[in-house]
């Protein structure tokens, strides 16, 4: 597939505490792998996957960032150009959930105000070690007006759904933007003719 052979291009950045499984989610989605014993990400990693949604080629640029505080200054620089952020925590780790407000502050400070944020509770394959109930997470995400999904990168649960639903929502946002702004402001996707979108069951 050539570089320009797509209808939409979106940047998705994964953020969240160290060790919650961001890299595994990205690997599972882009390569179909679950790399066990994954070392900590240093800086940022970059993957591309092109998916087809209702006959449209959607190129997803996925930036996997280091969760550790000390690499934050590099990873933060990517928030601004992101079309979507996937804020990830580990359902077996209370601490990673407790840090979410802090992450939301970071998003507030560095990301574009049009960014779409999705909250992801990963590692549901370790249900017996769950520390954060689904209800709690749902209440939190509702209060913050975020879409919420629980995944398992290991069992490949909801991983495809996460990225594909997100792509759907990004497409419809991009189209709405084209409608509102006409052609004045450059958009992530190409300004194609507007057709009614029915594929998304987002929210």
């Amino acid at each position: 597939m050539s570089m320009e052979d797509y209808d939409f291009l979106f940047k998705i950045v994964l953020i969240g505490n160290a060790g919650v499984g961001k890299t595994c989610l990205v690997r599972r989605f882009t390569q179909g792998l679950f790399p066990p014993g994954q070392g900590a990400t240093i800086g940022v990693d970059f993957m591309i996957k092109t998916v087809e949604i209702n006959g449209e080629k959607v190129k997803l640029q996925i930036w996997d960032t280091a969760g550790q505080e000390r690499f934050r200054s590099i990873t933060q620089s990517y928030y601004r150009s992101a079309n979507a952020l996937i804020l990830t925590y580990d359902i077996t780790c209370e601490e990673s959930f407790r840090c979410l407000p802090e992450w939301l502050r970071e998003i507030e400070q560095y990301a574009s105000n049009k960014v779409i944020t999705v909250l992801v509770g990963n590692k549901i394959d370790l249900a017996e070690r769950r520390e954060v109930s689904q209800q709690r997470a749902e209440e939190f995400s509702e209060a913050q007006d975020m879409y919420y999904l629980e995944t398992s990168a290991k069992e490949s649960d909801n991983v495809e759904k996460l990225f594909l639903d997100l792509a759907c929502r990004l497409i419809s946002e991009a189209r709405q933007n084209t409608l509102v702004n006409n052609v004045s402001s450059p958009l992530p996707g190409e300004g194609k003719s507007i057709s009614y979108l029915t594929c998304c069951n987002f929210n």
Partner: protein
Amino acid sequence: MATKMADLDSPPKLSGVQPPSEGVGGGRCSEISAELIRSLTELQELEAVYERLCGEEVREELLEPGRRKLHPNLQLIEGDAKQLAGMITFTCNLAENVSSKVRQLDLAKNRLYQAIQRADDILDLKFCMDGVQTALRNEDYEQAAAHIHRYLCLDKSVIELSRQGKEGSMIDANLKLLQEAEQRLKAIVAEKFAIATKEGDLPQVERFFKIFPLLGLHEEGLRKFSEYLCKQVASKAEENLLMVLGTDMSDRRAAVIFADTLTLLFEGIARIVETHQPIVETYYGPGRLYTLIKYLQVECDRQVEKVVDKFIKQRDYHQQFRHVQNNLMRNSTTEKIEPSCTMQELIGLYVTMEEYFMRETVNKAVALDTYEKGQLTSSMVDDVFYIVKKCIGRALSSSSIDCLCAMINLATTELESDFRDVLCNKLRMGFPATTFQDIQRGVTSAVNIMHSSLQQGKFDTKGIESTDEAKLSFLVTLNNVEVCSENISTLKKTLESDCTKLFSQGIGGEQAQAKFDSCLSDLAAVSNKFRDLLQEGLTELNSTAIKPQLQPWINSFFSVSHNIEEEEFNDYEANDPWVQQFILNLEQQMAEFKASLSPVIYDSLTGLMTSLVAVELEKVVLKSTFNRLGGLQFDKELRSLIAYLTTVTTWTIRDKFARLSQMATILNLERVTEILDYWGPNSGPLTWRLTPAEVRQVLALRIDFRSEDIKRLRL
């Protein structure tokens, strides 16, 4: 031959031969022809064939005893066959005889060789044993090692065999001595090497280093030698670091002294590798240098770690980082540092500092913005791009792709939001609508006013008292915006070519280029945002500065009657009533803009201006009345105007004035019906931009045309 053999050897084929049927006369003929037999040479085959022939014979005797009488020739054949059998037996025996002798000879020869080899080895063993003893006595370790090496190369199984022979005890003794000598030599070499390294006696170190591989101790030799070299690296590095700590801060290289130390370290290691490459490759074989370098790399990392640690401590790096962090209003706790990620972390800290530096210096450049007369742009554009380029350039020199990308991202943010906001806010203040004379005065005098207020740093925040100042600010800002757009494109190209080299060295892994491209395309997209801003500003300028000026000049068209007689027409010829003054006004106004705006912006502005003139003039014309000579007058006026506008703009203005030109044509008609000479099938190359209704409307402007005639027209 091989296939024939296979055929004959395979039992199914042989036994499967159908017995000759009784009904057929030729049944006695054997399947095996005489030619085939003659061509056979191998004993086995001959035997096989013979067996078969015998079998066939017996069968025939049993089955058809009577036939013999009927065929006396059989007697002859029988005789021949017997003779043949005799011959075959003879040949067979002969062959057996000959080949068995050859086989015996061959065996004998092989054993002889083995015997010689073993004798040689035993002699060598003895020779080695003697040699080792002598060499060891003479402390000729090279010679001793050479003997051991020879011994190690001997075929161990042969030696083992010899020990079981008659001379066993002697060989055993020799072997034992040799093995003892080997162990002793190993011990001696290890000991002497240790002493040599301890004393730093390089010739001795090298001497024993060369002996290790002869004793089959490649790994050990390299390990010990590497230890020796690493110790040297370490002590040199320590020495250098101590020197650094003693360096005065006023030293010329003080600022980069730690970087210098790292350079010294790397160069030192490179020199060591270079120096010892020949000896390693000669005595240890090709590819062994890698082992040495592996050891050195570990030491190198260890030393770099120390230098970086010292750097962080000495320069209060964390303290400074925290300071910067506080200034950026971020709350975070510093974590414990793990050595493995020190570099990445260091870069992370650096990026924050660089970002802070960039932001603060850009703010400073904006605050110190000055405009010099005769320039199109003010100082901050050049300053800002110099700063941004410098910051990214520094990040680039780290050779860390994450560092570079982060800096590009931060620069994108800085330009797209902070700096663009500065320019945007200036344009948002608008271009004050005043009279033409104000602008004339303003552009020349505003410079000083602006200059002084800029120095007080209140230019863009406090209310602007002088409209002149505001006007100049607006025009300069337009130029600034355009240059920003250009500069971003240039910056992108420069970075692209700068990084080609970096990528050809393969830094940052396979994703590096993709990361870089992605970040760079975000930066390049900012160029378009500045272009959009420029369009916004131009539209503003056109509607607030040009349109209000233009309106009265065009409206003055009303004051000139276009219901005129021959006499007035001639008078207009001599004393132009409207268009010359209009052109002059336009020229003067645009001249001011031409001086203050970049050619590209000026061109866009004249484009907007001509469109405006066409639209406004059309409105005025449609509200006026004409007679025949008045129409001719208007046609003349319009031609002058188009001729002038053609000289000031690079845009094609014919198109913009197409409707007006067609209106002039209509106003110039002799009589109403003449329009049909230009309309419909008679229009020729002319494309009418006026609708039939508009044509009637324009015809109605002629007071001398009767409305019934116009109504009657079939268009």
